[in-house]
């Protein structure tokens, strides 16, 4: 054994003052400096991310106020709703590793329940929304319990089966009196007289949802979720009840997907079985993949790029004539493929990095 190592070792065993297990003792105090968090809201606003977030929110509020265009406001409203939906999927798939392809189940249940409570019971929209979300949580439990035994692609297929079951159930003619069949529920009262007010309500709900989601993923529960995603048996070997936490993830995710679904039906003032289509699950997946998996805030960017830019920007092309009807979809699909090819991690992180350089440049750093 080399002399140096032997000395270090003897230090380690005897507990010398300068070395501990061969590591200079001074570094042991490093742990005191590790937890560094922004302490208050005031402090957060002046950080790079904080100021960017505030700017984005102000921008989103200003667009409908300046243009006063109902069409643009409607698009922005659906963008906000889908960003909540995508973020809820991100919590389940990106953070907990439970890739669900049947997220439209929660969305659809929330949509139907909220619509039913507004129409039949005449409840105000806010309470119906909460009830819709709570019922979606219960559905999350019902879907979650059998699906917990499944992993990877099997889980994806299992959850997708649930969305197909519900779609066919709500479509069936035999249950028309109860579930409304293809017509669904229509003729709901508007959330508010003015579209801008509706927009602001939804914006506030979206911001609150995101704050809650981000608090959850930064908390201890978030750490456990990530551990389950990275290695489930290792989490088990660390004494974590993985079944319980996976169910919690299903429930939290179901709650926010339910809120998104409720808002969707309340805003469009009607709901039909198409909300259970796998299409809606794929909206969430595409948006999260675009923004960046396991980022939460990436789903806002993903929803914006997919819903506002890709879907709406090329729409005028389709109006050139019937031959060009497929053009918008084609172009947005091509752009989507290119984006996913060149930004596997999503576009949020590279975008933030470039913005950060610009920000530092502006501040003269």
């Amino acid at each position, binding site marked *: *054994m080399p002399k140096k*190592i032997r000395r270090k*070792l003897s230090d*380690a*065993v005897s507990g010398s003052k300068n070395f*501990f*297990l*061969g*590591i200079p003792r001074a*570094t*042991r105090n*490093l*742990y*005191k400096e*590790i*937890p560094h968090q922004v302490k208050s809201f005031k402090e957060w606003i002046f950080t790079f991310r904080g100021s960017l977030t505030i700017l984005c929110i102000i921008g989103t509020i200003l667009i409908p106020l300046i243009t006063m265009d109902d069409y643009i406001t409607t698009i922005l409203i659906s963008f906000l709703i889908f960003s909540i939906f995508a973020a809820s999927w991100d919590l389940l798939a990106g953070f907990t590793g439970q890739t669900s392809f049947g997220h439209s189940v929660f969305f659809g249940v929330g949509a139907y329940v909220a619509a039913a409570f507004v129409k039949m019971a005449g409840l105000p929209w806010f309470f119906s929304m909460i009830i819709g979300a709570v019922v979606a949580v219960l559905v999350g439990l019902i879907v979650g319990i059998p699906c917990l035994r499944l992993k990877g692609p099997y889980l994806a297929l299992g959850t997708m089966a649930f969305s197909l079951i519900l779609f066919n159930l709500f479509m069936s003619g035999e249950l028309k009196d109860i579930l409304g069949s293809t017509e669904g529920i229509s003729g709901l009262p508007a959330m508010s007289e003015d579209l801008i007010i509706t927009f602001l309500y939804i914006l506030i709900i979206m911001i609150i949802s995101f704050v809650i989601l981000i608090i959850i993923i930064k908390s*201890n529960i978030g*750490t*456990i979720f*990530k*551990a389950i*995603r*990275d*290695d489930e*048996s*290792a*989490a*088990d*070997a*660390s*004494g*974590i*009840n*993985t079944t319980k936490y996976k169910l919690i993830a299903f429930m939290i995710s179901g709650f926010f997907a339910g809120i998104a679904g409720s808002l969707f039906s309340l805003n469009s003032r009607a709901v039909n079985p198409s909300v259970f289509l796998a299409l809606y699950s794929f909206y969430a997946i595409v948006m999260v993949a675009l923004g960046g998996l*396991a980022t939460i805030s990436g789903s806002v960017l993903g929803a914006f790029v997919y819903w506002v830019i890709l879907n709406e920007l090329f729409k005028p092309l389709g109006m050139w004539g019937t031959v060009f009807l497929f053009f918008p979809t084609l172009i947005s699909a091509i752009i989507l493929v290119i984006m996913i090819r060149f930004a596997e991690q999503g576009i949020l992180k590279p975008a933030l990095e470039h913005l950060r350089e610009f920000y530092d440049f502006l501040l003269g750093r």
Partner: protein
Amino acid sequence: MGVILEVKNLTKKFGGLTAVNDFSFEIQRGEFIGLIGPNGAGKTTVFNLISGFEKPNAGSIRFDGMDITGLKPFQIVNLGLVRTFQLVRSFHYMSVLDNVSVACLSPRGKKAAEKVGIDQYASRILSEVGLIDKARFPPVILPHGDLRRLEIGKAAGTNPQILLLDEPFSGLSYEEQEHIHALIRRLSNEGVTIFITGHVLRELMNLVPRVIAMHQGKVITDGPPQEVANHKLVLEAYLGRGGVFA
């Protein structure tokens, strides 16, 4: 003192292969004990059975006077019986600190970390295993030796009474092995019962006062390392029956 782990007539079959066959032993509280055997002897299966990752076909496991046969792995961990893996299993995309924090977030770990807080407690463990200066790195970029230390740190985070270390020395350089040696000795001195496997005798010889040797799922012999190393059946298990080398 007293018996902390008591394994009786443990049997595990994989199809036609009996990996563990009527395996019985006892471990005293605070003991430092090794389990040796050639490749494929069933050491890891014994660990999997004790820690609840696999269900035995027959036999019972009593830990601290309680029957833990058939309990789920996390329940066993929360009683204080913790194992590490032969192939290191870390949470790849979380920081090293969070890797240990997860263990501290288990019900048992939480109780231990209550006084100082999870982050402080996890950092303290990291500084003890010597990874504090890498606390913010993800484990994917760490060398193998550091991952082994992290594995022990993760196990220590749950405040174990008995620690099952599955081949903690495999694939390590001499210097790294010495680090792990010192670490395990320190844990043992703190009163943690340690049960350690290895297929190379030399590594364990200097470390443990008592060794169980197993071959083809059965206990061959049980005793001090020198005695075990010279045991006829152990030599046969390692070197074959021909007696060319022995």
